[in-house]
């Protein structure tokens, strides 16, 4: 049986993800002109977060954005593992336990960001 991750745990993982991004000069350079609002939504709890990609800076806040460009939807434990880097997004994306809604190019870019923060 899978364990539900708490909102605090997801927030901690998002914090680590943002730090990984903001401390990576190459990622900041790669995404300097990329502006996106990303919804991070847990399917087994009411937890939702907003990731703001403002080019070289990545930040997050609790709550869902009004008009997300990209949606990352999965069970809470998957979200926490994903943003902690304990789980690579490609596997759950391919088996359907992680759903990404947005343009294919944005999805590929998010995958690249995750791989460059946490490795494969």
């Amino acid at each position, binding site marked *: 049986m899978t364990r539900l991750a708490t909102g605090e745990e997801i927030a901690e993982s998002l914090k680590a993800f943002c730090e990984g991004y903001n401390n990576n000069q190459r990622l900041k350079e790669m995404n300097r002109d990329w502006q996106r609002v990303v919804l991070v939504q847990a399917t087994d709890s009411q937890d939702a977060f907003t990731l703001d990609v403002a080019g070289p800076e990545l930040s997050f806040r609790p709550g869902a954005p009004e008009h997300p460009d990209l949606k990352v939807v999965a069970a809470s434990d998957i979200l926490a593992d994903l943003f902690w880097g304990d789980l690579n997004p*490609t596997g759950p994306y391919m088996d359907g336990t992680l759903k990404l809604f947005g343009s294919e190019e944005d999805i590929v870019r998010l995958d690249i960001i995750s791989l460059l923060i946490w*490795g494969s």
Partner: protein
Amino acid sequence: MEIDFLGQRCRIERRGTDGDFERALGLLRELDGRVDAIGLGGIDIYLRVRDRRFAIKDGLRLAEAVQKTPVVDGSGLKDTLEREAVYYLREAGLLTPGLPVLMVCAADRFGMAEALVECGCDVTFGDLIFAAGMSYPVKSLAELEDLAVKLLPRMAELPFHMLYPTGSAQESVDEKKAALFAPYYRAARVLAGDFHLIRRFLPPGLDGQLVLTNTTTREDVELLRERGAGSLGTTTPELEGRSFGTNVMEALFLAYLGKTWEEATREDYLDLMRRLDYRPRLTYFRGR
């Protein structure tokens, strides 16, 4: 069509499925054991970066659907052929040290990338630009390898259409992105690599660039001319007035050699290329 290949009559057929993966799987199973070799087009089985090989999940699934007939994606021949094409153009004085080159993607043709760097060209690798729309030119083979090792093992598991235009997506130019990425094209004197990727963001207003690529159709040539390219170098050999993709040529080579993909060597390919008197074909749009 039927052609004479070094004294042997060969029948070549193109069977397309317009990017339909399941239909492609069915077709491959149907052809298994009934033809001498199969060349997969529009998809790679492996990406080779120096001595590492990364399997593309979808490409491997297609290859594994075939048990008896040798299946190739052209990557083995491409590595040999495109190096030779670059050396030929260097000898012809068309590739000189410091010449700015935009190579749209090096992960699918590392041999060409290495040869261009060997010639001293100032190469911009557009792998992240063309795969993910990231305005991040890679400027060295070392960084390219570093990124390949970090990204390719996982990215190769994504559906192929997310990484490369397939089916009808191969036939259009993304005009919005073409405007965005035009500076990379215009700063280069040579545009090198896969033609579907070159075309993807091909801007108008080029000023005489040499396009070095694999195969092109008559429509592609017209598009290049209309967008201002100066010349076109195609790397695939011409047989009886027709050019074929490297996947077809590599399949033809294997059928002729009677070898599997694993058995065929670079020397085998070089020997056949010598016997075919291989050289890249050059077409000038504006005079030499």
